[in-house]
């Protein structure tokens, strides 16, 4: 029996020390996920809190076949999406109002020369709809059909939102890279 299996068993039994150990093991990784979906660290922590409550509530349903981290991650993503849907602050921005036809697909594949947290902050500056679809497709790997079902939008809408988000991000990343080069040049 692996350490995690024993930990899960102890958590199911309601042992507080085991629960805290599980939380400590995954909290930082999961907060990073919540952070990408929300607009503020406080909201991300709310999602984290809600997510871990669900984790402990449904831990008995976890089959030891898969990876515990992956299972917790799915819970966090679902919790984050529900949070966006329920929180009035995000509802308007998550309405996926179409602003015209499909956005032209960008073939740009720039080298992302920035730190993870900087990139996360760029993603968080996207409108919530773009941000959510980008996170779900590019990082979580959901298909546009799945995203459409989860968010209650058309597959096409998801696709166009993603492309807009991607183009916007690429523009920002390129801008960031050029500024960085300028700074390095000025520094020399």
């Amino acid at each position: 029996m692996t350490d995690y299996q024993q930990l899960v068993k102890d958590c199911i039994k309601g042992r507080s020390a085991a629960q805290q150990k599980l939380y400590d093991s995954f909290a930082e990784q999961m907060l990073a996920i919540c952070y990408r979906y929300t607009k503020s660290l406080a909201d991300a922590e709310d999602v984290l809190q809600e997510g871990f409550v669900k984790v402990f509530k449904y831990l008995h349903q976890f089959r030891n076949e898969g990876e515990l981290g992956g299972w917790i991650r799915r819970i966090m993503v679902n919790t984050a999406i529900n949070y966006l849907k329920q929180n009035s602050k995000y509802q308007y921005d998550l309405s996926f109002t179409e602003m015209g036809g499909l956005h032209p697909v960008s073939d740009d594949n720039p080298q992302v020369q920035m730190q993870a947290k900087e990139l996360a902050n760029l993603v968080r500056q996207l409108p919530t709809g773009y941000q959510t679809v980008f996170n779900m497709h590019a990082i979580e790997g959901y298909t546009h059909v799945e995203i459409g079902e989860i968010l209650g939008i058309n597959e096409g809408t998801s696709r166009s939102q993603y492309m807009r988000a991607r183009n916007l991000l690429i523009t920002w990343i390129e801008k960031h890279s050029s500024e960085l080069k300028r700074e390095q040049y000025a520094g020399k």
Partner: protein
Amino acid sequence: MPENDFEKQVQRLFDELRIKPSENVWPLVQNRVKRDKHRRRIFLWLPAALVALVAGGYWAIQSLPGAAAISEHSSTATKQTTASSSGETATTPSDASPSASDIAETMPTPPIYAKDISKQESRRASADGSNQAGRPVPDRAGGYGAPTGGKPIRRAGEDGSIADEKTALFNNTAYEAGKPAPLASPDKHSNHNNMGKAYQQPEAALQTVAMRGLPILYSPQALNASSVAAPLVQVARPRLWEWGISAGGGISGIDKGSLSDIFRFDPIAERSDALASPSFDAVSGYYNQFLAPQGNTMYAVAPPASVVKQDFSWHAGAFIKRKLNEKFSLSSGLSYHQYTTNRLVGDVNYQNTASLNLSGSTNNRVPRYSGTYRIGGQYTSRYHFIEMPLGLDWKVVNSKKLPVYIHAGLQFSYLIATNALHYDRKSGMYYEDRDMFKRFQTGIYAGISTRVFSGKPYAFNIGPMASYHTSNLTKPVADKRQNLVYAGMKLQWVMGSR
């Protein structure tokens, strides 16, 4: 899964990302987990608690002086018949005014285009999460969107994570997985504890506040914590009142004052006991149950009354609730409630002709009686009440989807009409007499319900409830104690709230 390089790079970067949560998250999680565990225990103990509640209420009523002793009666029937057969808006105080960065976070963000990038970059200095003061925040106890009345739960610099986030942004410092972001300058970091100073960072030359889609440019000098104009923030007032219509159905019966009849569901067996064959008592020399001595004369006695059986009962009316706090509400209403019982009645033809003289010889003491007891049919007694409950609703499960409430309280009833029968022991007759009923009744009720489609226009509460009339149904002149009992399902349609 996208096969694109860009997506792969992004995935790889984000896999490394770790953000340390603030210290207060784990205690909140722990409290919620404990509370959930506590709720599950409540569900296990709820049936026992309900029984205890009803029994306790009954005991309390019974302990009241004068409630217990009702004399055995000699009935004076006035009418004898032989039975044949229930956004306003408010402004927050000035201390609740959000900072510029808060406004940017709380207002809907318009799509960002390339021309806005320079603004976005300057905005990054006051990036997300830098200050949460005064913004409406989710309820950490579980509910979202609950206004905090302007009370900030976290300010810039309260936890290291926020400061780290900003430091990383200002300085483009590397964020290493699992470690706190390194600080380029301790002075800068300490400045982040102060909102006004934070805006004096050289990188943050201009702050863009997106409000209602219109960018407004502020100079850093104009933006300090004290001089930021306090825009009016609309805060939805919690809905305190709730009303709607209610209806329900179940079983009602008569209890003989001991609560024992509530759990008796085999009235037929009792009835057959009551009508058991008379046994001859050799000592007294008369047939038990059928003959009673009075002086020197033996009288034939009437058979015992038939058992009152439970029957279908229903109620319909309106309710109103006033929220006291997150957990408790006062509830009341007005409803019509029809209690129904039934019993077997028949044509009784008994004659007091079985008298004999006990002074005679042994042979003469053989009793003689005459009479017939023919089972007629079922008679349905209906009690029409107007009821007004007054009680407390306790939200025991604070779920958004299926909240669970426990209700308990007092019930005031007025008997508007009835066709119920009384029984005269002497004559063995069933008869109607409305004057023998108490018009005003008091009682207790308890129940449990869950709210279905919570938050939707067609939300309703449904669950079982039980009530017990602690008042005697009949006046003291009647032969014995009778209490109405009801158990059934109750449905409340929430039609409005304010």
